[in-house]
C-alpha cells in the first residue's frame, strides 16, 4: 500500500480558501430573514428545500478534508446547543479570509494563532457587560390558573413571511400602550386568544413593574415615558424636537435609566426577544414552557422546588398538508395512528386504561441486545404430530393471553411491532403502538408507575401502569394526514409531557418548521438554564468589533507579562516581534466581525447594499470608540443600534420594537469553534492520504504529491 502526501500551502493556503468558499454558501441564512435554497441533484433530479445551515451542510457532499472538518464542527455545535450553526459557518469563512490576509502580510503563523485566540478570549470577557440577567421568570406565574384540557393557543402566521421585528405583535401592543400600560398579549393570530385569562397574571405584573418605575422616575415623567416608549411615535417626535434643542439633561437621563432597566423577568418578553423573527414557533415554545410550569406546580403543590424547563419532555407531532391553524401546544402525548384504529379508539375513550411499556421490539424473534442467537440448533420432533399453528401464532396467542390476564389495553413499544400481533390485539380491543420515543416511554413510566420491560413475558402486576386516557385529538376524522393517519392524544393525570403540533399546508416546509421550533425551544432552554441572555440584535458582535479596534490601537508595553502570555512559546523570537504584528492581526480579526455585521444588516433588507450597511456600522463604530467605553455606548444607544440592524425596514410603519436577546454560551462557543477550526486549518501544512485513496488522484493532479 502506498501513501500520498500533499503539501497544502505552496503559495496560498488551500484549506483556508476552501473554508471561505464553503462558508459563502450559508451567507443568506444569517439574520432573522432567511432565504431558502433549493438543492438539486443533477443525477436523479431530486431537490430539497433547505433554510438552515445544518440542513444545507447535510445535503452538500463535502468530500475534502477541510469540508469534513467544517461539517464536524457545525454538527458538534448543533448537537450540543441546537443553535449557532450559522454564526459558526459565517465566522469560519470570514476569519479564514482574515487569516489569509495576515499570511499575505507576512505575519508568522504562531503569532496569528496566539493573538487571534487570545483576542477572542478577551472579546468573550468583554461582552459579559452586555449580559442581561434572567431571573424570577416563574415567580409571577404561580397564580395562573390551570388551563383546561385542549384549551390551546392557536397561531397562524406563514413561517416564510417572518417579520424581523415582530410587526404584528407589536402593532397590537402598540395600540394598548398608547393608553395606560395594560394587558400585553403578544398575540400572533389576528383573532383574540381563546383564553385571555391565561395572560392576565403577566399583564398585571408588567403593569406593576411599570408602576414601580413610574415611582422611581416620578420626578421626570417625560424621562420615564422615554425609557419605556423609546420607539413610540410620540417619543420620536419629542426626541426630534427636544433632543436637538436641549439634549443635555434628557439625553443623560435617558442613558442612565436605560442602563438600569436591562433585566428580563418576563417570559413573554424573553420569548419575543429570543424569537429572532420567528414568532409563530416561539409562541408555541412559550406556551409549552407555561404548560410545563403549571404541570410542575400542580404536582408539587406549592412549587417549593425551583422549576426547571425540561426539554426532554417536549415533543413535536407534525401534520404535513394541514392548515397552519392546527398548530398548537397540548399537554400529553400526541401520536399518529392508522385510521383503521379509529373505531378502537372510540371504544377506549372515556375510561382509564392500563398500559405496558416495552423497551425493545414486540416480535417473536426479538432478543435483547447482547444475546447471540445460535444458528446451529435443530429441534427434532419426537412423534409425528402435525403442528397446527406456526410458532408466531403460538407466540401471539401467548402474548394476548398475558394482556388479557393483566387487563392491558395499551402497549407502547420502543421498537418494531409484529403486524400479526397488532391485528390480533385490535380485534380484542387493545391498541399496540410501535416506534415510540424512549423519553415518552420514560415519562409514562414515571407518571403511571409502569416498569419498562424487554419481553412481554416479564410483565407482572407491578409492571403495569394505570390511569391512561386515550382520546381523539380533534373530532374523529377531522384531521387526517396524507398517510391516512389520525392524531391521538394520550394523557394521564401526572404526565409532564407536552406535545407541540406543527401543521403546514406545504409539506416541503414541514422539516423547516420543525427545525425552527426546536431552535426556538433550545434558545429558551439555554436562556432559562443559564439565567442570562445577551442583548441581541448584534450588540455583542458590535462590541467585539469596537473592543478589538481599541486593542489594536493600544501599544504593547515591552516586557509586559500578560502580553508575553499571548504566545505559547514565550522564548521564541516571535515573542519580541509580537508587538509589531499584533495590531495587524487584531484588525484582521475585527474585519471578520465587520463582515458579519454588514452581511447581517444587508440580509435584513434594511439596506440596499452592503456598502450602505457598512457606512452605518462605520459611523457607530467611530462613535463607540470615541466615547471611550464601547460597552456603555452600546447600552446607551442600544435601541438605536438595534433598530438600525433589525428594524429600519419597517421603522416607518412601526416605531416600536421589542428588545432582542441572544443566548450566551452557545453564541460564545460558536465563535470559539469557528476560530478553532480556522486556526486548525491554518496550522495544517500537509494532507496525508492513506490507504487506497491515492489511486483516485488522477495523473494530472499528481503534481504536488509526494509518495511514501
Amino acid at each position, binding site marked *: 500500500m502506498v501513501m500520498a502526501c500533499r503539501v497544502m500551502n505552496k503559495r496560498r493556503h488551500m484549506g483556508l480558501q476552501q473554508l471561505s468558499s464553503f462558508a459563502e454558501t450559508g451567507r443568506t441564512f444569517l439574520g432573522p430573514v432567511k432565504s431558502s435554497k433549493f438543492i438539486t441533484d443533477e443525477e436523479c433530479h431530486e431537490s430539497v428545500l433547505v433554510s438552515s445551515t445544518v440542513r444545507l451542510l447535510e445535503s452538500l457532499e463535502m468530500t475534502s478534508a477541510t469540508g469534513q472538518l467544517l461539517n464536524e464542527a457545525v454538527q458538534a455545535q448543533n448537537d450540543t446547543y441546537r443553535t449557532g450553526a450559522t454564526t459558526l459557518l459565517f465566522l469560519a469563512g470570514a476569519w479564514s479570509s482574515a487569516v489569509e490576509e495576515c499570511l499575505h502580510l507576512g505575519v508568522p503563523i504562531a503569532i496569528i494563532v496566539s493573538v487571534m485566540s487570545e483576542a477572542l478570549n478577551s472579546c468573550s470577557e468583554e461582552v459579559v457587560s452586555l449580559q442581561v440577567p434572567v431571573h424570577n421568570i416563574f415567580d409571577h406565574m404561580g397564580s395562573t390558573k390551570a388551563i383546561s384540557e385542549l384549551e390551546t393557543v392557536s397561531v397562524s402566521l406563514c413561517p416564510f413571511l417572518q417579520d424581523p421585528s415582530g410587526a404584528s405583535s407589536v402593532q397590537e401592543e402598540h395600540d394598548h400602550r398608547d393608553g395606560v400600560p395594560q394587558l400585553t398579549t403578544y398575540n400572533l393570530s389576528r383573532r383574540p386568544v381563546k383564553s385571555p385569562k391565561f395572560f392576565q397574571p403577566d399583564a398585571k405584573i408588567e403593569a406593576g413593574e411599570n408602576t414601580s418605575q413610574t415611582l422611581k422616575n416620578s420626578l421626570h415623567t417625560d424621562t420615564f415615558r422615554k425609557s419605556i416608549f423609546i420607539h413610540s411615535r410620540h417619543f420620536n417626535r419629542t426626541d426630534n424636537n427636544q433632543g436637538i434643542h436641549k439634549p443635555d439633561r434628557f439625553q443623560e437621563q435617558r442613558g442612565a435609566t436605560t442602563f438600569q432597566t436591562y433585566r428580563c423577568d418576563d417570559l413573554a418578553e424573553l420569548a419575543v426577544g429570543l424569537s429572532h423573527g420567528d414568532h409563530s414557533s416561539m409562541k408555541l415554545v412559550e406556551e409549552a414552557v407555561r404548560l410545563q410550569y403549571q404541570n410542575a406546580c400542580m404536582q408539587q403543590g406549592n412549587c417549593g422546588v425551583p422549576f426547571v424547563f425540561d426539554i426532554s419532555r417536549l415533543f413535536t407531532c407534525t401534520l404535513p398538508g394541514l392548515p397552519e391553524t392546527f398548530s398548537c401546544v397540548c399537554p400529553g402525548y400526541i401520536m399518529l395512528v392508522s385510521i383503521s384504529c379509529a373505531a378502537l379508539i372510540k371504544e377506549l375513550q372515556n375510561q382509564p386504561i392500563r398500559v405496558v411499556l416495552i423497551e425493545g421490539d414486540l416480535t417473536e424473534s426479538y432478543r435483547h441486545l447482547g444475546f447471540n442467537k445460535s444458528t446451529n440448533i435443530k429441534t427434532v420432533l419426537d412423534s409425528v404430530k402435525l403442528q397446527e399453528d406456526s410458532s408466531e401464532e403460538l407466540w401471539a396467542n401467548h402474548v394476548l393471553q398475558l394482556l388479557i390476564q393483566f387487563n392491558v389495553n395499551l402497549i407502547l413499544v420502543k421498537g418494531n411491532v409484529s403486524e400479526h400481533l397488532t391485528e390480533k390485539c385490535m380485534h380484542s380491543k387493545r391498541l399496540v403502538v410501535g416506534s415510540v420515543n424512549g423519553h415518552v416511554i420514560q415519562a409514562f413510566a414515571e407518571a403511571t408507575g409502569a416498569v419498562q420491560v424487554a419481553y412481554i413475558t416479564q410483565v407482572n402486576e407491578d409492571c403495569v401502569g394505570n390511569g391512561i386516557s386515550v382520546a381523539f385529538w380533534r373530532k374523529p376524522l377531522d384531521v387526517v394526514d396524507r398517510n391516512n393517519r389520525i392524531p391521538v392524544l394520550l394523557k394521564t393525570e401526572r404526565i409532564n409531557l407536552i406535545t407541540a403540533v406543527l401543521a403546514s399546508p406545504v409539506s416541503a416546509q414541514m422539516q423547516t418548521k420543525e427545525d425552527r421550533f426546536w431552535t426556538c425551544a433550545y434558545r429558551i432552554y439555554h436562556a432559562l438554564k443559564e439565567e442570562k441572555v445577551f442583548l441581541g440584535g448584534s450588540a455583542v458582535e458590535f462590541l467585539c468589533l469596537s473592543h478589538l479596534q481599541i486593542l489594536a490601537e493600544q501599544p504593547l508595553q515591552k516586557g509586559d507579562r500578560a502580553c508575553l502570555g499571548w504566545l505559547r512559546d514565550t*522564548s521564541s523570537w516571535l515573542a519580541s516581534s509580537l508587538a509589531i504584528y499584533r495590531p495587524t492581526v487584531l484588525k484582521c480579526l475585527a474585519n471578520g466581525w465587520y463582515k458579519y455585521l454588514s452581511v447581517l444588516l444587508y440580509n435584513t433588507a434594511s439596506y440596499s447594499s452592503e456598502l450602505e450597511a457598512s457606512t452605518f456600522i462605520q459611523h457607530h463604530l467611530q462613535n463607540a470608540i470615541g466615547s471611550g467605553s464601547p460597552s456603555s455606548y452600546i447600552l446607551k444607544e442600544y435601541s438605536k443600534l438595534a433598530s438600525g440592524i433589525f428594524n429600519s425596514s419597517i421603522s416607518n410603519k412601526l416605531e416600536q420594537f421589542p428588545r432582542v436577546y441572544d443566548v450566551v454560551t452557545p453564541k460564545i462557543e460558536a465563535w470559539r469553534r469557528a476560530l478553532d477550526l480556522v486556526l486548525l486549518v491554518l496550522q*495544517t*501544512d500537509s494532507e*496525508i492520504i492513506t490507504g487506497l485513496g491515492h489511486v483516485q488522484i488522477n495523473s494530472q493532479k499528481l503534481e504536488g504529491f509526494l509518495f511514501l
Partner: protein
Amino acid sequence: MLSRLEAKKPSLCYSEPLTTEKVRATLSVLKGILTSCYGPSGRLKQLHNGMGGAVCTTSQSAVLLRNLSVTHPILKILTTSVQNHVSCFSDCGLFTAILCCNLIENVQKTDLTVTTTIKLNTHLLNFCTNYLRSEVCGCRIPVDFSNTPILLCLVRSILTSKPACMLTRKEIDHISVLILRAFLLTIPENTEDPIILGKSIIVPLKGQRVTDSTVLPGVLIEVSEVQLMKILLVRKSSPLKVVLFSTSLSGDFSDPGEGNVVVSDGVFLENAVLDQLINLGRQLVSDRVELVLCQKVIHPSLKQFLTTHQVIAIDRVGVMLMEPLSKVTGAQPIGSLGSISPGSYGSVKDWCSAKFGCKHFFHLIPNEATVSSLLLCNRSDTAWDELKTYEEPGSILQDDGCTQAELQLIAEAFCSALESLAGSLEHDGGEILIDMKYGHFWSIQAGPSSVVNWTDLLSRCGCGVYSSQEELGWSFLRSTCHPFVPQTCLPHESWEVSPQSAHSLTLDCLTAKLSGLQVAVETANLILDLAYVIEDKS
C-alpha cells in the same frame, strides 16, 4: 474439494537498500513530515483516506505513525521502533524519529565505513547518556512530589506542544492541574515498597467545554437514563457487597462450535439457560450481594429479578473498566455461571448518580481512592482525540532545544544531527543562537546579523531558565564555535525560590528523553547495518 496450487514466486533480494534513490527520497519525505510537526509551533497534518473517511488532524508521533502505511522495510523498522518507544513512555516520539532520520542521512554523507560509524555512534550514545545521568549535567532538575510547580510545568510543556488540541492558555492550565491531580490520586497513601500506582480512567465527554472537565475519585460507569431510574428505585445502603462478572449473563449459550446441536421437541434451551441465571441470582440474593456489575450483558429477566430483590444490577460495563473495578472493589472477576466462592466478593463504600452534559453516570465511591476518573471534555472530536494524558514520574529534563544544544557541543560527530533537530523547532524562519556560558537555546528573528546588542533582542532562552540580562556570549547554532564545557545548572534551591519563573519553564521527562535517544541511535545503527532486503513475493 479441488484446491488450486500455485507455484511459489522466487523471493526478491536487494543489496545495499540505503543506496537506492527511492529509499533516500522516501526517507527524506518522512523526515520532512516529522520535522514539521516538532515543537509547540509545529505544523499539523490532516490524515484521511481521500474517500470521505474520517479526517484526523494531528502533530503527534503516536497518531501519525499509527496511521501512516509505509511499505518499505527500512521505514517499517524506523516506525515500529519509534512506536514501541512511544507505547512505553508516551513522550519524545518525534524527537526519536527525527534524530534517527538525521543520523542515517548524515552518516551517508561521510565516507566512513558502516562498522566504524556504528561503533562511533554507540560510543557517543554512551557518552551522552552518561553525561545526562551524571550530576554535572546542566539540564537536570530533580523532582519530588512536594514541588508541584515543576510537575505542572512538565504537564504544561507536553500539552503546549500539541497545537491540535486547540486549547487556550486558561484551558491548558485547567487541564494541567486536572492531569496532575489525577496522577497524584493514583499514588497510594501508605507508602510501602514497592509503590503500586493506581489508575486514571479517562471518561470522554465530547462537545462540552474544556473547562467543564473534572477529576473524581472512584469509577464512573455510563448508564442510560432508563437504567438509572431503575437503579434509583433500589434502597440505598453502605458499604455495599459487590460481585463482578466478566462473563456474559445474557442467557445465550456458549458457542457449540461446528456441527449441529439436536434438541428434542418441547425442550427450550433458552428457558433452561434462563433458569440457570435465575438460580445464580438466587444465590447472589442469599449471599446478600447488593451490587452486581457485569462486563457484558445481563438478561433483562435476571435484572428484573435482582431489582425486585433490592440488588443493583449494572451491565455492559466494558472491558476497559474491569481492571479498575476489580482494584477498587477488591472483587475477583467471575468468568463462569457456576457457583461463586465467597472470596470473590468485594465491597465498595458508597455510590451516587451523576449527570455530565447529556450523559448519566453511576459513580462508584471506593474505600481507598487510588483509582480516579478524569472526565475530559473538548469541543470537537478532532481536538478530543488529540488530547491525551501523559504521566511519568522521575527526573525531568529541560527542553526546547537547550538539551540538544548542549549535547551538540559534547559529541562532535553527532553534531549536525542534533543540531538540525534543535533547528527544526523553528518553523517561522527565525535564527537560532546558542550562548557560550550555559549552552542554552535562544531564538531570534532572521535578518541582518550585525546586531551587536543581543541582550535587547532576546528575552528568555528556550526552556525559560535564563533571561538575557546575564552576561552571555551568543553565537549562531550551525556556525563554527569553540568547544566549551557548559556550566552546571543553578543550585537546587533556586527552583523553589522562584515560582514565577517556574511557571514558564519548558520541561521534558528525563527517562523518556534518554530512551528516545537510545532508541534513535540504535535504530539508526540497525538500519545502517542493513545489507540486504529479501522480499517474499508469493
